[in-house]
C-alpha cells in the first residue's frame, strides 16, 4: 500500500488585475491629489479662506492694521515697516484691506455660483429630462433671460433694495444662471439616451430616482468646471460694477472696489491697482487649476 503523498499545496490563483471597487468620488479624489498643480490651487484657495476668516481676529490682536482706519496725511504711501504694501488714498493700510477684501470677494464668488447652481441646475435638469414642450418653453424662457442686459437688473435691484452685498450678488446670480442651465440641459439630453438610464427605466425606477442617482452624478463633471471658472468671473464682475458705480458700499474693502479706486490713481500710484489685481489673478488662477484638476480627475478615459 502506498503512503499517500500529500498534494502539493495549491498556489492561490494570482488575482487578475481587477481594480478594487472604490466609489466614484474616492477615485476622483485620488486622481486629483496626484495632480500637483491642482493641489497647489486648492492649497492657495484654502489659505485665502483661512485668511478671510481670520483677518478680523488678526486685527483684534494687533498683528495687522485696521483696514478702515484713515490717516489722510499719509495717503498713497509706499511700502514701509508699518504698512507692508503701502496705503491707499485715505491712508488706510493696503495689506489689511487686501486681507479683508478676500472675505467679500470669496463670498461673492462662491455664493453667486451657489445661486447659479440652484437656479440654472434645476431648470437645466427639468428641461433636459422632460423634453418636448416643457423643454421648448423653458429654453425660450432662457432665451429671454439671456438676451437681457443685466446692467438694468443690477441697477434696479441695487437702487430698490439698497447697495448691499446681498443685493449685488443676488443680482449677479439671477442674471447669470442661463449658461449653466443650457449646459446642464445638454448633458442631460445626451446622458438620458444612454443604456444605463434605459435599463433603470425598464426596471421601474421613479423619475426622481433616475435624476438623482444617474443623471446628476454623470452630468456633474463639466458643471463643476463651469462653476469653478465662474467663481473668479463673479469677483471680476464685482470690480466692473464698482467701475460703473454700483459696487460694494464703502468703507468695506473688497478687491473690486480696491481695483476701481486704484485704477483712478493708476498714473500716480500704480501699486494701488496692481496689488488687488494680483490678488484677483491669483484667486482666478487657483480656481482654474482646481477646475482643470477636477476635470482631469473626472475624465473616465484618462490613464491612471
Amino acid at each position: 500500500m502506498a503512503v499517500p503523498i500529500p498534494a502539493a499545496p495549491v498556489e492561490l490563483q494570482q488575482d487578475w488585475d481587477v481594480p478594487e471597487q472604490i466609489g466614484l468620488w474616492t477615485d476622483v479624489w485620488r486622481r486629483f491629489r496626484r495632480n500637483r498643480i491642482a493641489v497647489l490651487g486648492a492649497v492657495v484657495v484654502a489659505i485665502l479662506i483661512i485668511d478671510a476668516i481670520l483677518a478680523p481676529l488678526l486685527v483684534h490682536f494687533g498683528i495687522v492694521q485696521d483696514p478702515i482706519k484713515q490717516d489722510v496725511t499719509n495717503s498713497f504711501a509706499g511700502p514701509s515697516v508699518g504698512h507692508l504694501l503701502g496705503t491707499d488714498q485715505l491712508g488706510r493700510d493696503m495689506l489689511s484691506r487686501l486681507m479683508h477684501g478676500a472675505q467679500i470677494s470669496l463670498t461673492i464668488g462662491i455664493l453667486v455660483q451657489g445661486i447659479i447652481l440652484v437656479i440654472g441646475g434645476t431648470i437645466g435638469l427639468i428641461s433636459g429630462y422632460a423634453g418636448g414642450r416643457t423643454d421648448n418653453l423653458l429654453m425660450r424662457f432662457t432665451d429671454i433671460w439671456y438676451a437681457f442686459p443685466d446692467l438694468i437688473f443690477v441697477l434696479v435691484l441695487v437702487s430698490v433694495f439698497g447697495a448691499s452685498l446681498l443685493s449685488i450678488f443676488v443680482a449677479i446670480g439671477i442674471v447669470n444662471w442661463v449658461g449653466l442651465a443650457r449646459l446642464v440641459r445638454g448633458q442631460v439630453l445626451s446622458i438620458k439616451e444612454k443604456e444605463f438610464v434605459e435599463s433603470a427605466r425598464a426596471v421601474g425606477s421613479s423619475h426622481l430616482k433616475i435624476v438623482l442617482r444617474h443623471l446628476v452624478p454623470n452630468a456633474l463633471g463639466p458643471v463643476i468646471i463651469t462653476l469653478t471658472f465662474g467663481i473668479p468671473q463673479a469677483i471680476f464682475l464685482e470690480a466692473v460694477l464698482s467701475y460703473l458705480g454700483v459696487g460694494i458700499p464703502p468703507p468695506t474693502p473688497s478687491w473690486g472696489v480696491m481695483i476701481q479706486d486704484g485704477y483712478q490713481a493708476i498714473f500716480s500710484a500704480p501699486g494701488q491697482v496692481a496689488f488687488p489685481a494680483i490678488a484677483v489673478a491669483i484667486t482666478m488662477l487657483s480656481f482654474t487649476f482646481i477646475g482643470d484638476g477636477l476635470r482631469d480627475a473626472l475624465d473616465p478615459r484618462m490613464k491612471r
Partner: protein
Amino acid sequence: MWGLHPRKQVRSLAVGICAVVVAFACGNGGGTGTSNEAAPNDQQVLRINDGTEPNSYDPGQQTYTYEAAVGRMTFQSLLLPKPDLSDVQPGAAKSYDVSSDGLTYTFHLRPEAKWSDGKPVTAADWVYGWKRVLNPALAAGYVDPFFDNSVAGGDKYGDVDSKSSSAIDTFLNGLGLSAPDDHTFVIKLAQPAGYFKWIATLWVATPIRKDIVEQAAGGPVASNDATKAEAWANDAKTIVGNGMFKISEIVPKDHVTLVPNPQYWGGAPKVQKLTYYFISDANTAFAKYRTGDLDTYTASTQNVQLIRNDPVLSKQAKLYPKLTTFWMTFNEKKAPFDNEKLRLALSKSIDRDKLANNVLNGTDKPFSTFIPQGMNGYDASLGDSQKFDPTAAKKLLADSGVTAQQLSQFKLLTRDTTANKTVNEFISAQWQENLGVNIGIEVIDSKTVTSRIRKGQFDIYGPDGWGADYPDQQDWFDIFLSTACHNLNWGCPTLPGYDDNIKKADSSRNESDRNSMYKTAQKQLIDTAAVGFIYQAAEYTLIKPYVKDLKITAIDDQAIPGDLFYHDIFIAKH
C-alpha cells in the same frame, strides 16, 4: 462718420524712426521753449476735453457747463462779464439803459452784428429767442428762476397749459419783451432787480432765427410743438448763430469742431479751429494730454501729486480757483437734524484743512463760509461758528441732547463718483474720530440720489455745492429760500426772516444795501449751520505752454479755462 482721426501709418512710423534719431542727436525734446510767434494756420487748433456731449446745441435748452461751453461760442448774449468779474461789459448789445424805476431795460444792439450766414441780427430775433426760452412747451431748464421771476408776465409760466398753442401764444405775447425798432430790444421786469444785468450775460438767452427754425421744421412751427421747434439744432449746417465761432462738424459722442465766424462783429478770432472732445475717463484724457493730443487737462485728485512731482508737467500746471463752494446738507425736516446744536457739532468736527490739503491734495481750499473768494460778498470772518474745533463740537453734541446711539441709525447719502465717495468716507471717519458718532455712508447712483433728495428721503447728503452762474450774490442766496424747498434747498432749513431779507436784497438796486442784507443772510446761514460748509473748489489745470493769451476767470466753464474770452487766444509756434 468714418476716419475721424486719419493718421498715415507708414509716414508716421518713418517720422517716428527719424525722430528717434534726431531726439538722440539733439537731446531731450520737451517743448520747453516756445516763442510768441503765431503758428501757421493749420496748427492754430485748440483741442479741449469737454467731458460730456451736450444734450442740445440750442442755447435755450442748455443747462450744464459742458453744454454752455459750446453755446457760448456759437451764440452771444447781450452782455458779458468783465474779465475781473467786477461788473458787466457790452456783448451783443453795445450799451443799455435802465429806467428810473428799475423796471425797464433798453438794450441798444450793435447795428453791425451779423449772423454766421451773413444776415443782420435784428431785435425781432432777440424777442423770438427770449420767448423761446420762456415757452413752457420747450421746457428750458434754466428758465427758472432767472427768466420767469424777472421778466414781466413770466410768473404765469407754471400755469400755462403747454399742450395748447393758443394758451402759450397768449402767455408769450403778454411778456415784457419788445422790439421798438431793429436795433433796440426792450425788456420789462416784474419787479426791480439789481442783478438783472447779470442775467443778460447768461448763455441761455440769445437771439434765434425764426426763418431757420421754420425751414428746418419744414414750415411754420406751432408754439406747442417742441420737436419741430428743435429740428434745426441737430445739424451743424442749420445752427446759425451770432457768436464768434460756428460749428463745422458734429460727430455724435466723439467731438464737435468749431471754426471762426467771419461775420462776427468783432472780427474773426485768431484761433482757426476749436475741437471739443467728449472723453469721460479722466485717465484717458490725461494720457491724451501727455501724448500731445489735448492742449489742456484738469487734473483729477489722484493725478495731482504726479503732476506736482514731474519737472515738465508741474511747470504747465496752475491752480485756478472757481466760484464754487461745497457743503453738507442736513434734512431739517427730520429729527434730530432740526436741532441747531447738533448741526453745529457735526460741522465743527470736520477737519477742513486735512480735507483740502490731504484728501483733495491741496486742490481745494478749506472753507466755512458761503460766498466763495473772488466774488463780492466773500467774508472769511463770518466763518468762525463753523470752524473746525473738536472740543467745542463735543460740547455742542453733549448740549444738544442727542446721543451717539441715536445718530448711528442715520446715513450719509453719497453719489457714486470716486471723488464723492472719498470725501464722504473721510467725513464719516471724522465724525467717528472727533465726535464718537458712527454715521455710515450710503452710495447710490446719481439719479436715484437726486430723486431721493427731491422727495426729502435722506438724513444727511453731501457734498452738495453751487457754482456761480454769474458773480452776483442773488444767484447764491436764492438757493435757501423756503420756496426753493425740495428744489435746490434740499434740507429745507427754518430761517426766520430770511425770505423777506433776500427778496428785499434781490430787488434793491443800491449795491451797499444789497451787500449788507446779503451779509446778514450769510451770517444767519453759517451761525445756524443751515448747512455745513466745507470747501471752495479750484481746478488744477495743465495748459500747454504754446496756448497764449488765455483770460482765465473763476466762472469759466468746468475744466475749460478761459472760455469766456476766446477771441484773442492763439497758438504759438512750437
